[in-house]
């Protein structure tokens, strides 16, 4: 009942005191262009021989803190009972082809923006150890975050393609410049797969544009135009390819191992946490929310890809001898679960997937970051050497266990309601897929159990290099992600004053994400037999 209540959120839930008082028309633009302006501005600060490297880090940190503050205002001011887009901005950009600078977020978009804010600040903290070319690093990191925010807020396909493609170059340069031994391979794979995804997105956009008469790229017009079934199918397949390269889904996951293993930690966190979630967000925004017929037609394909992804990721993680590689593959699991929820096409599963955008991003980023930090502190990535570390790494042990539980979606974790809603919502429409996903999750649980047992609780390996526990800085960035997972798990509807139903300071992620969800899910509500009689 509770889950159904979340999925079919009442259009008039209890508003947070003060919601809607402050509505700046520039909130979304600020979250995109402030990092860009700061990144450009950083280049004008003289930094002879890296003298002001710490200042550069502080600038990046406080910029992200500022963005989190802006997003916190937006989150608090978000009107959970309004169905449409909020904080909308619309300006003509290329009127001759119908492209507008149109930004806006609904509940799902706001959820993604919150995720991006948390991941942004975590990425800066995780990058505190960068020593070489510090200014360039943080400039590129800010540009990546700006591009991700832009892609989330975009409500025009032209703007979406622009930011979707713009994220590639800074992410590739960060991997190439500050990555590990396999950084070259990681970079070219990232460029190739994400480039393919951008090309697929552009083809989907152009196909819909041409078929709808070429008047506008606005999502409200373009994605809701009446198209022939053949065109719908072509657009849908191209969108799935674009999403699968970014999320990623099997078999378009070729960049995952190298990037998550060899990109610098902060970059891995951004990619696993927010940039890759854009794939699932695209499925929601451009397919599920816009084109019910094509969604129904292509749902089995998405379900098959999701099930294959989970099974493949778990099997590879089981056989892996490299901790970071195992974690990289396990980080694919939450994305596949999110995609499966969209394939199930029920209000409950869609709601679960929207929540899973947030929880999956955090869980994926946390498992990647924990594996990265642990292998760094243990001075090896080899699972043949890593063993019995729990007594010597108590903090990392706790975080690793939280990451594993978050990935599996156990109670008290934010991923629990998300995965439960997805699975409960999908058994009617995708029973075979749901069983396959559950089987994949069981395999994932086995892989995680083996990994945790071997690395943390096995016999200590006396041949392994010396280890040390997480530093205070490392505890901070891991703690922020773990804390966010636990906070939403404990207070999905926001903390409330005792004896009341009134949320205080946090309207509750579940309330915020529900805004507009009933509109998205309305084509998939099963007909009521009583009403038809």
């Amino acid at each position, binding site marked *: 009942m509770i889950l159904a209540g979340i999925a079919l959120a009442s259009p008039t839930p209890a508003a947070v005191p003060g919601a809607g008082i402050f509505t700046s028309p520039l909130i979304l633009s600020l979250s995109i262009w402030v990092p860009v302006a700061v990144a450009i501005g950083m280049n004008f600060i003289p930094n002879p021989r890296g003298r002001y490297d710490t200042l550069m880090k502080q600038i990046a940190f406080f910029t992200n803190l500022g963005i989190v503050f802006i997003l916190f205002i937006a989150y608090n001011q978000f009107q959970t009972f309004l169905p449409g887009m909020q904080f909308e901005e619309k300006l003509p950009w*290329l009127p*001759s082809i119908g492209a507008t600078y149109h930004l806006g977020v609904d509940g799902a978009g706001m959820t993604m923006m919150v995720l991006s804010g948390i991941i942004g600040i975590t990425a800066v903290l995780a990058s505190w150890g960068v020593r070489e070319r510090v200014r360039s690093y943080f400039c590129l990191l800010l540009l990546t975050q700006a591009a991700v925010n832009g892609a989330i807020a975009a409500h025009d396909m032209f703007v979406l393609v622009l930011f979707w*493609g713009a994220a590639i*170059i800074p992410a*590739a340069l960060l991997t190439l*410049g500050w990555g590990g031994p396999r950084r070259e391979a990681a970079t070219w794979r990232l460029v190739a797969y994400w*480039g393919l995804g951008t090309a697929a997105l552009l083809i989907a956009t152009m*196909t819909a*544009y041409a078929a709808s008469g*070429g008047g506008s790229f606005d999502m409200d017009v373009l994605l809701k135009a009446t198209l022939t079934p053949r065109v719908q199918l072509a657009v849908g397949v191209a969108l799935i390819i674009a999403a699968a390269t970014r999320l990623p889904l099997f078999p378009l996951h070729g960049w995952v191992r190298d990037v998550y293993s060899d990109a610098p930690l902060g970059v891995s966190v951004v990619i696993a946490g927010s940039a890759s979630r854009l794939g699932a967000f695209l499925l929601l925004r451009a397919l599920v929310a816009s084109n019910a017929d094509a969604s129904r037609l292509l749902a089995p394909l998405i379900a098959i890809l999701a099930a294959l992804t989970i099974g493949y990721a778990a099997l590879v993680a089981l056989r892996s001898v490299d901790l970071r590689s195992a974690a990289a593959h396990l980080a694919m699991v939450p994305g596949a679960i999110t995609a499966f929820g969209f394939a199930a096409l029920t209000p409950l599963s869609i709601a679960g997937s929207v929540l899973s955008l947030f929880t999956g991003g955090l869980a994926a980023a946390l498992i990647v970051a924990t594996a990265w930090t642990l292998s760094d502190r243990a001075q090896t990535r080899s699972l043949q050497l890593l063993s019995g570390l729990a007594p010597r790494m108590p903090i990392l042990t706790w975080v690793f266990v939280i990451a594993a539980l978050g990935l599996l979606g156990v109670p008290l974790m934010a991923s629990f309601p998300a995965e439960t809603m997805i699975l409960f919502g999908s058994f009617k429409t995708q029973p075979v897929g749901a069983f396959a996903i559950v089987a994949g999750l069981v395999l994932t649980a086995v892989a995680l159990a083996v990994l945790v047992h071997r690395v943390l609780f096995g016999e200590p390996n006396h041949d392994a290099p010396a280890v040390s526990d997480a530093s205070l800085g490392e505890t901070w960035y891991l703690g922020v992600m773990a804390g966010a997972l636990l906070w939403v798990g404990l207070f999905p509807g926001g903390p409330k004053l005792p004896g009341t139903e009134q949320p205080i300071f946090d309207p509750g992620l579940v309330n915020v994400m529900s805004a507009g969800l009933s509109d998205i899910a309305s084509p998939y509500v099963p007909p009521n037999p009583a009403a038809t009689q």
Partner: protein
Amino acid sequence: MAGAVALVLLGRAPRRPRRWAPLAATLLVAVALAVELWAGGTLGTYLTGALVQDRFALFAKAAVLLAAGLAIAVTDWSDEGAPAIGMAMILLAALGVMIVASATDFVGLWAGLELAGAAGVVLVSVRRADLGLRLLVAGGVASALVLIGLAFVYATTGAADLSTIRRVAGSASATLPLAIPVFLLIGGLAVRAGLPPFQFARLPVGLGASPLGAGIVIGLVAAAALTVAFKISAALVPLPAVFSPYLMVVAAVAMVGGGAAALATRSPRARLAYLAAGQVGWVAAGLATHYRIGLGASLFLLGAFAVAATAGPAVMAGADAGEFALAGMGLLRPARAAGIAVVFLSLAGVPPLAGFFGEFAVASAVAQSGGFWLLALGLLGAVMSMAAAVGTLRAIYLQSPPDESRRAAGARLPVLTRLSTGGAVALFAVIAGCGVFANPIISLADQGAEALGLR
């Protein structure tokens, strides 16, 4: 023209031009640009109708003057063998493109194209006579093909005047006697622009010429050839079957070939030349759509291309020695490095720069005309181009500068002057600004396409 002659005379004078000459030439071009923008909006005909001033001419001339001005400003003049000749030749090449942009008949098109090509040959010969000869021979082949094509179009339609040809084409049907000369004409223009697979002259020249010489050949000569293609396409627009398929093939080969070759090569100058060839392919794809939105988008992209491809080699200065010549440029010459970065990214079509906006607009026109196979090939080329641009950015921003004592002659750092720094900043601002503030510029390009009589 007067400026170019003055500069040639200055080069012959016993007292060689001093440091003020590049600044003076830049100011001259800036004044010409201001006059063009101020007075060019007024329609008019000159030389008894041989030249016309319309919105198309206004856009093309403004873009070419901007490209020439920026190229002069960012050039490291200590690296140019004959600065006065260099400045004069780029002005003459720009004049050639401007003549083409205003031409109303075959004579004007021919004269402008040859003038731009000849200016390139002269400047390339100053440093490398052998390359100048190679360019001359390739230019001769291109000229022969273009001339034969023009002559047979004249013979078939009975007119050399573009508006008359358009009128005749409106009442005629596509025939082989018209299709064959157009094929030769487009082939000649492709050779002149040095598009793959006709890069046999352009690539060695791009590698061996002085930076400004390479800029003329890669940028302005290709812009002249494309402007001729615009005029011819607009004249034959009632009969798209005689030119559109050729342009599609040229576009497909250039986009994919340019991207693949840019990815394969390690030399920054060659990479820039191939990226430019890929973008020329996008312009040709827009022309192949043969309607106003497509040509408008192509015209916008032509402007972005002209600026990036002309000023690109100049802002790279002595990078002809190899990728290591750019190593650490971001640290040593930040303004110049930013200019190089936006040039590469814009030619690769990476958002949010001018090249992306142009290619997106062309892509929308190609999609509307149903050319999805061409769009898919273009995107394939764009992905390869993007990967190639990442390779160059790595050298600029991620590699450490080489030891000064081990710098080869071709890898020496460009001399730092206020003009070149200001020029690099302006180049960055123009390429980035044309993207973000694309609306008025693309509207003007659309008016330019309308001025060619397209609906």
